[in-house]
């Protein structure tokens, strides 16, 4: 289908993007890689009055190590994250997730910041951000990942606010992300991510609710010395997963436990 008509402008900097958003009003949207937005435009599920294209904002395409943090610019594309030696060295789980986003064509266009702003329940990076207590940096403030994702497709971003950077802690230790899906390029039906830190395991789950979830019960069981299967048994505690054509809520609870156990076993 053909998208509904909209105005279009290009921004060359963060300042320009925010000014254009402000001028275009509340029905304007940012387009980054567009790999989720353009399908929505074509189906006319989204009909913005104006698109501000940030693909020319080169200042947001970077991976910077800084102390024990890894700062990743919002316009960094998935394919860059897969190949980045800095990401592979300091936060290999991010590279592992990036390699499982969509397919090669989608990875060539889609961006890290776009995933955060879009806030799909099945997005992969939000899980990593929530479980590692990452910080989302916008053009005007810093927001903790747990406060950034509010609901399905809903974030703390104001209408004229732009995601600029995500700051992750470095985590070079054992890790695994298992994304359960029917076809390679699909979204996760459920995903489980585990990362060993100096302070213990961090565990996160994808698509078991409207936003990414940190599986605190699994983490505390591991801290108390539980085996992987025992700890993974707590992965569905407190979850209220969605039921849809791909999986029922009960099946998602089951997957959360099984995938968490497998991820722990494969990471260790």
């Amino acid at each position, binding site marked *: 289908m053909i998208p509904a008509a909209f105005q279009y402008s290009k921004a060359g900097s963060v300042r320009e993007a925010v000014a254009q958003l402000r001028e275009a009003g509340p029905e304007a949207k940012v387009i980054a890689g567009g790999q989720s937005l353009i399908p929505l435009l074509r189906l006319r599920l989204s009909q913005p009055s104006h698109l501000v294209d940030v693909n020319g904002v080169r200042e947001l395409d970077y991976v910077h190590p800084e102390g024990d943090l890894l700062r990743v610019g919002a316009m960094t594309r998935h394919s860059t994250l897969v190949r980045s030696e800095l990401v592979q060295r300091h936060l290999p789980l991010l590279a592992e997730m990036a390699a499982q986003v969509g397919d090669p064509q989608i990875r*060539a266009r889609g961006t890290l910041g776009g995933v955060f702003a879009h806030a799909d329940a099945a997005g992969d990076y939000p899980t990593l951000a929530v479980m590692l207590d990452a910080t989302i940096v916008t053009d005007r403030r810093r927001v903790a990942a747990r406060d950034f994702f509010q609901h399905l497709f809903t974030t703390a971003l104001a209408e004229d606010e732009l995601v600029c950077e995500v700051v992750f802690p470095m985590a070079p230790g054992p890790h695994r992300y298992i994304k359960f899906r029917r076809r390679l390029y699909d979204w996760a039906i459920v995903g489980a991510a585990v990362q060993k830190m100096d302070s213990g395991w961090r565990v996160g789950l994808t698509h078991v609710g409207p936003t990414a979830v940190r599986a605190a019960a699994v983490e505390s069981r591991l801290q108390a010395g539980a085996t992987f299967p025992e700890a993974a048994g707590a992965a569905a505690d407190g979850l209220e997963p969605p039921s849809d054509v791909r999986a029922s809520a009960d099946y998602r609870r089951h997957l959360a436990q099984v995938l968490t156990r497998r991820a722990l076993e494969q990471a260790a």
Partner: protein
Amino acid sequence: MGQTLRVTVNGEGRSDEVEPRLLLVHYLRETCGLTGTHVGCDTSQCGACTVLLDGAAVKSCNMLALQADGAEITTIEGLAPEGGLHPLQTAFWENHGLQCGYCTPGFIMAAAALLAENHDPSDEEIGRGLEGNLCRCTGYVNIRKAVKAAAQAMREGAAAPIGG
């Protein structure tokens, strides 16, 4: 209403006035007349519309034409010199890597991007490299064979036979 798009398509510089909502695939097919790039699923899954954008394989149904401003695009028509075949085209022909042929331009463009990065891909790497493309006829076995054969031909620097 229209905005100016300056782009190089198959080596030829162009400048066109386009509506912002025009998708790159429709620009290529309708404005440039390059109908080798196909619209398959319209949901950005099938990969039939794959073209090279500054060397990277992208789905042209999932980009606005204006987002290609300043870029170099290669479509299936621009892969081989006039009158000749690219080693991938020869290999798809010789290995029966297609039946109905609808998905073929997309597979060949995705494979071209894969082989530019990896001159000797394994079966697994070919599978991963082409996971953004769907074929409903072949069962993929001959496509994989064709990509392997093309990779070998390109490594050996074999000239593509003119006209097959």
